[in-house]
């Protein structure tokens, strides 16, 4: 048996992980067992990454362009679905009902648009990074590349911080360990997988992490669905569950969970804000650097197209399950309404989660009966608390934590590597040392992984220590979508479909987009000025991104038309992107 084969090594590591977990549980009890289950999963990925080690730059930048479509799809899904998707989205739907659905459509349908406007063409460009593509499209004009690198950092650094915060949250929620320490364990994992061979190693690790994540996400839902009689396909059968929740809501005169536009989202409210919010998430998805890079790594153009389909299939599986999660949790909570306070307090899972502060109970009107307003829950309880709501075997909770860790680490990895390769290829190799050897380039990538990882970890540490700062990290992740939608997305689409776009148009577009998005974020999002109203609907900071997107496109077109065209060389490059291999 060949021990260095990735498949064999991973299987052996998994067997060791299971054996260790069982032995430690028998000797040391449930807590130590849980700890080994969660931390052990980090080492399985590490074993896989080490077997894939390489020192070729093509492996580091684009995984040697040899990833099959299905694998790339699963890796894209893991790259994409973050700690927020895994831990918090179901909770947002449980709390905000219909008004949280823009998360579901917004974080999925961008892929459909991407499949026929960006993904295959990016693959055909034969470049290594997005800044490189944009520079080549601008006739080799350096400032475009530099601007693109800066934008990658604006979008990715806070996003990375949020993932590391997510790792901390997983550890503290499931194991009661200090989140601030866990951040450093998390960043070590993310670093190590990218260290061995860049996109090549993290692609396969992400592929594995996707299946870990989706299995662990669905397990509690299916067990709960068994208790509620919703098998075999809870996603197709939860209608009556929603109806029961609505009956309870009606009994207490509450707005129904499915009632449209009664709650605010992203600082705005109403149907216009609702759809703008969703659209900005979609358009932002298409411009996020760690997602764009994924389409460089496939074998052929056809594989690039198909892999987007697989990506959305895999992503969709989790997203359509999120609303079932939300319904089940809300069903469990609403079952407590109207019950005597003493009875509620003696419920096992309420007792377990009250000390964490994720659930708050107070008999405000002192009538001894629990009113809906007297039970406040944090969104995160939906996923982390579900095993307890149905009295599942203890081992389910650490397994859900393993999934959450996979979600956070896989996204952190993609972001970390997108930033490190951008600096190496687009700054160091392009401007500082164009004669750098492969060996040197890889050294720089690895060095940057450590530096950027450390910066991210320190920021995450402060975000966890100071909740005030932590709030901004969450907001900044949302705004990363606004920045992506107002800078990269329109420029990349125009680059492919409109030959006349020139270097000045590209810069003008990106700057205009940013100038439309940024002041609104600062004034409304941070300085808390009242948002602008459109036909009576308040437009939140994220929804506002739609104006950044169109402002960018209009400025890019106008400035391009007013300045001189790029000439035959760029035309040829555009044509090469449009034609098949």
């Amino acid at each position, binding site marked *: 048996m060949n021990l260095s084969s990735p498949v064999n090594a991973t299987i052996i590591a998994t067997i060791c992980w299971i054996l260790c977990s069982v032995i430690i549980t028998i000797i040391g009890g449930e807590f130590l067992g849980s700890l080994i289950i969660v931390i052990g999963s980090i080492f399985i990925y590490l074993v896989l990454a080490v077997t894939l080690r390489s020192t070729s730059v093509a492996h580091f930048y684009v995984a040697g362009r040899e990833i099959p479509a299905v694998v790339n799809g699963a890796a894209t899904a893991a790259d994409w679905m973050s700690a927020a998707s895994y831990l918090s989205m179901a909770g947002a739907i449980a709390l905000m009902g*219909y008004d949280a*659905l823009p998360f*579901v*459509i917004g974080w*999925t*349908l961008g*892929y*459909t*648009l991407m*499949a*026929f*406007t960006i993904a*295959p063409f990016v693959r055909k460009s034969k470049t290594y990074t997005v800044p490189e593509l944009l520079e080549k499209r601008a006739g080799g004009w350096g400032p475009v590349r530099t601007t693109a690198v800066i934008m990658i950092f604006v979008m990715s650094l806070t996003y990375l911080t949020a993932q590391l915060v997510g790792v901390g949250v997983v550890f503290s929620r499931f194991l009661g360990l200090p989140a601030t320490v866990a951040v450093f364990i998390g960043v070590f994992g993310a670093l190590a997988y990218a260290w061995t061979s860049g996109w090549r190693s993290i692609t396969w690790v992400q592929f594995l992490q996707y299946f870990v994540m989706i299995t662990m996400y669905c397990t509690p839902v299916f067990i709960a669905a068994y208790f509620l009689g919703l098998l075999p396909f809870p*996603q*197709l*059968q*939860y*209608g*009556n569950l*929603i*109806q029961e929740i609505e009956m309870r809501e009606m009994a207490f005169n509450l707005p129904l969970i*499915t009632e*449209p*536009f009664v709650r605010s989202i992203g600082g705005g409210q109403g*149907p216009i804000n609702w*759809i703008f919010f*969703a*659209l900005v998430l*979609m358009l932002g998805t298409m411009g996020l650097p760690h997602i764009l890079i994924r389409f460089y790594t496939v074998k052929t*153009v*056809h594989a690039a*197209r*198909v892999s*987007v*389909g697989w990506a*959305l*299939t895999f992503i*969709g599986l989790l*997203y*359509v399950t999120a*609303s079932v999660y939300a*319904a089940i949790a809300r069903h469990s909570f609403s079952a407590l309404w109207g019950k005597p306070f003493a009875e509620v307090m003696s419920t096992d899972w309420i007792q377990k989660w009250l000390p964490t502060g994720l659930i708050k109970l107070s008999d405000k009107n002192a009538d001894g009966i629990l009113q809906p307003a007297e039970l406040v829950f944090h969104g995160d309880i939906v996923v982390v608390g579900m095993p307890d709501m149905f009295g599942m075997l203890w081992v389910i909770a650490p397994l859900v934590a393993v999934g959450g860790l996979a979600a956070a680490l896989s996204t952190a990895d993609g972001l970390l590597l997108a930033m490190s390769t951008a600096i190496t290829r687009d700054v160091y190799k392009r401007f500082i040392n164009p004669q750098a050897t492969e060996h040197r380039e890889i050294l720089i990538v690895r060095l940057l992984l450590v530096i950027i990882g450390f910066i991210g970890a320190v920021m995450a540490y402060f975000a966890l220590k100071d909740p005030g700062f932590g709030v901004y990290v969450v907001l900044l992740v949302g705004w990363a979508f606004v920045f992506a939608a107002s800078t990269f997305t329109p420029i990349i689409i125009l680059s492919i*479909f409109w030959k006349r776009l020139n270097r000045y148009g590209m810069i003008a577009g990106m700057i205009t987009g940013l100038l439309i998005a940024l002041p609104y974020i600062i004034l409304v999002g941070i300085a808390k000025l009242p948002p602008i109203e459109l036909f009576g609907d308040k437009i939140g900071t994220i929804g506002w991104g739609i104006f950044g997107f169109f402002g960018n496109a209009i400025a890019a077109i106008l400035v391009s038309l007013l300045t001189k065209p790029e000439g035959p060389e760029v035309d040829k490059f555009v*044509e090469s992107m*449009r*034609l*098949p291999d």
Partner: protein
Amino acid sequence: MEDLKAFYWRRVKVLTVIFLIAWIIIAVILPVTSPLLKGVRIFGLPSMHWYMNAFIVIVIGVILIFVYSAIMNKLDKELKKKVSEEELL
């Protein structure tokens, strides 16, 4: 050869416009009009105005991508065949 390239790109553009319209339908029109379906229930599914956003548009989104790749793959093969025929002449 130039004719073939132009022909190919024209087909791609037409296809892109068609899919763009389809995308606008699933990503904008269906979600925005979904509240009109409030109270419409089929089998054990939740009310359609909810389910449209929580399930249906995502499934259509996936199908659209696979349909697009199948059509494009066929078109690519067609182009390759035509190019090799032209080279033979």
